[in-house]
């Protein structure tokens, strides 16, 4: 066995990887000796480590000034081995437990022991996604843990910053088309020594951010959390001994790896699972976009998942689109992190949760695609735009396995994008400001296989979803809420509907310059799916705003206000109510600044549905209509549920009429549908002549160029010659 104290970290990392290759077990731990000797001690000590993490995070949240961290909990902390593998973690934005692991390993591989040196009391920070994070606002700090002169681990913390100093205000810098416009980068930098953040680093933050108080106080919060965990771990090692700790921490990870394999074998079925989703990005004609590439993109995101007989999960993104000059690219760190956070939610509900689970998986992210750009100048500031839909597919694939195996209570139609609003300009206090509005951390979830999805209560990146209090948001931005309400029908239809989203409407207040920017919402296509007959949620909403509205005059006259755009997709309640310049904006909301008196609304996304709509419970549907989750129109048209009013005027299901209507709908289905073979024969003519919109044709060309397998499968499916090419291909 390698001497764990005498060798350099770099040697230890290489040796750990070699042992994994050689034995198939983490760090060559073929036997869980300590667990076997004293399982209670083994479990108790892990619970202690987890408690250190949870408590450090809660303490840190109270140091932060950012409502994203304080209110919504956009933070996570973890404890690592010297080689950078996570041993224990807190709740929160768990995606970063693994991205931090990448960051630590990157420093080790790049000779940080020699220069700049790794010493007790040092603080290292990073937000470079190619080193190890997801996007520029995810800033991570790690500190080494030394015990009597020996490096025995790392403590790390991440906060999602509400302002990153990019070309557009906020953290998810939508307009960034290359790395150089994403904002302030800290590239695996030593930002402090002797437990103190360097003054010159703080000055750099203060000079390069629109709202440095968020970032700088978050740094202090993270460093405090790291020191807290470090001291707790040192105390623990003092109690159990260094040798015990070194063996124990490795066994935890190996146990996590084995548990993941066992859970996969327990909950799923081996085989090949496939699914896909799409994402539309429309920027044509928007101010600020540089003509670096085509303005509009349609992204296909196909995923093939193999569950091997060993219980290993292999994900393959072959066939997806190239990276592009937009901010939605993702790095391998982000892709790994997405896998990690999905597993922690869906399979790691018992036993130890750590990097071991991730080690029981494999992922193929083809070089040159958005999942693994071959150009490190690519921007990744809104990588969630593609990452969330992608891992929503993964959730559906896993759920297919749960359903096959009988664990229907775990099946879940998956996560969706929850579009962000970023803003900047002049605050209500007359000062410059910038912020990301994080109420998006509470979207609708996909349906379950046994019940409706959660309404306004789930996002994939933080299972501890929370939209935050209106009053807190209003303190931080020059807008006041005039509405926050459920969006009817925003969950995908099905026997069990997807969870509904909410929409907020604001009056811009006490400012003459407010820039609003939105990101991570698809245009022209839905970026989610249903399952087992359920429909996708409608996730290509446009934005509604009113410039120079007469809201103050209406209020003066005591006339009613419109608090949401309403349920008529062609004429909004804003148009019916307010005078002023009506705005319907498709794609990212990037327009000229707003001012006091303007009205702006922004809808989040609901989740996909499960099962056939004609099996939905009519009584539950009547309740949904009464409470604004579904419209009467949808109940009848989509679900075939006929409602009448009871004596008090509340909707009540007419069961007989519903049964009759549904029988008619089944007849209509059979009458209107055609055999798939017939459809394929007809549709193949369209494919043969490449009768597609320009963006669709470009998508096929992109997929075929990067993936011989996609090209082969496509041609075989449609019966095309092997030399077939989509028309217009250069």
């Amino acid at each position, binding site marked *: 066995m390698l001497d764990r104290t005498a060798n350099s970290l770099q040697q230890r990392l290489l040796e750990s990887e070699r042992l994994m290759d050689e034995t198939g077990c983490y760090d060559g731990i073929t036997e869980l000796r300590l667990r076997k000797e004293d399982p209670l001690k083994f479990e108790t000590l892990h619970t202690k480590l987890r408690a250190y993490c949870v408590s450090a995070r809660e303490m840190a949240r109270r140091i932060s000034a950012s409502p994203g961290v304080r209110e919504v909990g956009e933070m996570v902390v973890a404890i690592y081995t010297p080689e950078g593998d996570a041993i224990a973690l807190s709740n929160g934005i768990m995606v970063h437990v693994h991205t931090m692991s990448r960051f630590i390993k990157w420093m080790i591989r790049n000779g940080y022991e020699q220069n700049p040196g790794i010493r007790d009391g040092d603080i290292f920070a990073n937000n470079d996604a190619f080193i190890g994070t997801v996007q520029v606002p995810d800033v991570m700090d790690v500190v080494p843990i030394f015990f009597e002169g020996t490096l025995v681990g790392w403590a790390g913390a991440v906060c999602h910053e509400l302002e990153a100093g990019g070309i557009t205000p906020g953290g998810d810098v939508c307009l960034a088309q290359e790395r150089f416009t994403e904002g302030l980068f800290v590239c695996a930098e030593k930002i402090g020594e002797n437990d103190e953040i360097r003054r010159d680093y703080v000055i750099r933050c203060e000079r390069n951010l629109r709202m440095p108080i968020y970032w700088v106080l978050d740094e202090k919060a993270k460093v405090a959390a790291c020191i807290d965990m470090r001291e707790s771990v040192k105390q623990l090692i003092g109690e159990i001994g260094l040798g015990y700790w070194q063996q124990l921490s490795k066994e935890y990870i190996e146990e996590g790896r084995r548990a993941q394999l066992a859970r996969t074998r327990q909950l799923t079925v081996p085989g090949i699972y496939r699914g896909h989703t799409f994402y539309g990005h429309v920027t044509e004609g928007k101010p600020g976009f540089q003509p670096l590439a085509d303005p509009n993109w349609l992204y296909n995101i196909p995923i093939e998942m193999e569950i091997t007989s060993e219980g290993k999960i292999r994900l393959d993104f072959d066939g997806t689109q190239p990276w592009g000059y937009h901010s939605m690219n993702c790095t391998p760190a982000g892709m790994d992190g997405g896998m990690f956070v999905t597993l922690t939610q869906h399979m790691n509900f018992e036993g130890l949760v750590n990097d071991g689970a991730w080690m029981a998986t494999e992922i193929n992210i083809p070089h040159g695609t958005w999942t693994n750009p071959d150009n490190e100048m690519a921007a990744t500031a809104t990588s969630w735009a593609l990452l969330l839909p992608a891992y929503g597919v993964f959730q559906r694939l896993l759920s297919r396995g749960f359903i096959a195996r009988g664990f229907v209570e775990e099946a879940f139609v998956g996560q969706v994008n929850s579009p962000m609003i970023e803003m900047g300009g002049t605050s209500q206090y007359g000062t410059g400001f910038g912020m990301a509005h994080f109420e998006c951390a509470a979207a609708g979830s996909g349906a379950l296989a046994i019940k409706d999805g959660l309404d306004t209560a789930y996002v994939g990146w933080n299972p501890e979803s929370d939209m935050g209090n209106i009053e807190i948001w209003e303190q931080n931005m020059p807008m006041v809420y005039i509405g926050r309400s459920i969006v*009817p029908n925003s969950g995908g239809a099905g026997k069990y509907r997807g969870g509904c989203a909410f929409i907020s409407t604001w009056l811009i207040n006490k400012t003459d310059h407010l820039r609003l920017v939105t990101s991570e919402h698809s245009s022209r296509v839905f970026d989610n799916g249903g399952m087992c007959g359920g429909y996708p949620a409608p996730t290509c909403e446009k934005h509604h705003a009113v410039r120079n509205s007469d809201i103050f005059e209406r209020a003066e006259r005591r006339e009613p206000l419109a608090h949401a755009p309403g349920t008529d997709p062609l004429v909004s309640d804003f148009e019916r109510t307010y005078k002023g310049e009506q705005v319907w904006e498709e794609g990212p909301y990037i327009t000229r600044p707003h001012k006091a008196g303007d009205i702006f609304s922004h809808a989040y996304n609901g989740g996909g549905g499960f099962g056939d709509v004609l099996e939905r419970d009519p009584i539950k549907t009547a309740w949904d209509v009464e409470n604004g989750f579904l419209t009467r129109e949808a109940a009848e048209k989509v679900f075939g549920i006929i409602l009448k009013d009871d004596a008090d005027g509340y909707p009540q299901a007419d069961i007989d009429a519903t049964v009759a209507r549904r029988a008619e709908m089944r007849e209509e289905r059979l009458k209107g*549908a055609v055999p798939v073979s017939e459809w394929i024969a007809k549709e193949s003519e369209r494919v043969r002549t490449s009768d597609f919109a320009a963006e669709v044709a470009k998508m096929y060309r992109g997929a075929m160029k990067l993936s011989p397998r996609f090209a082969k499968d496509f041609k075989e499916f449609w019966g095309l010659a092997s030399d077939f090419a989509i028309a217009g291909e250069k």
Partner: protein
Amino acid sequence: MTGYSKEVINDLVNGTLPWPQTRRIMSAYKDDDRFFKYLAVLQDRVSWSDPILLPVSDHLFICDSAEGRITRCECGHSFGDYRKNWKLKALINVRNTEESLREIYPNSDIPDPSWMEIREFFCPNCAHLHEVEAAAPGYPIVHDFEPDLEGFYRDWLGKPLKEVA
């Protein structure tokens, strides 16, 4: 070891188990005998006697039959060899106009039909909607699931299936 009665599994699968009980099941250690109880519950649900080997969707099952191992709808309709994509033997309705998309999304913004269409796959016998795809025009139909059926029974369940010709 955790275990539940067939009645509880039946109610769980049907979505009729009270939430507090469902929640307890979700929070507890998983019951290792779930699979065969689940199959028994599903077998009681169908009017045909071919043994169900593996559910692949809400109302679609791989079962043994006189014609070999097939994918069968709960109503009894056969989609043929389970190794082939059952969707290719289904009926399809494609929503690729504003009018047809509005029928499902009456109050929302809808996709641009030149970028995305909604495909519905029905059972030709009972008209059950088994799956929905939201895809770009021209996108091949997806084969959702190719289980390693024999490997599953042999290596994971320890009950190898009888060999079929």
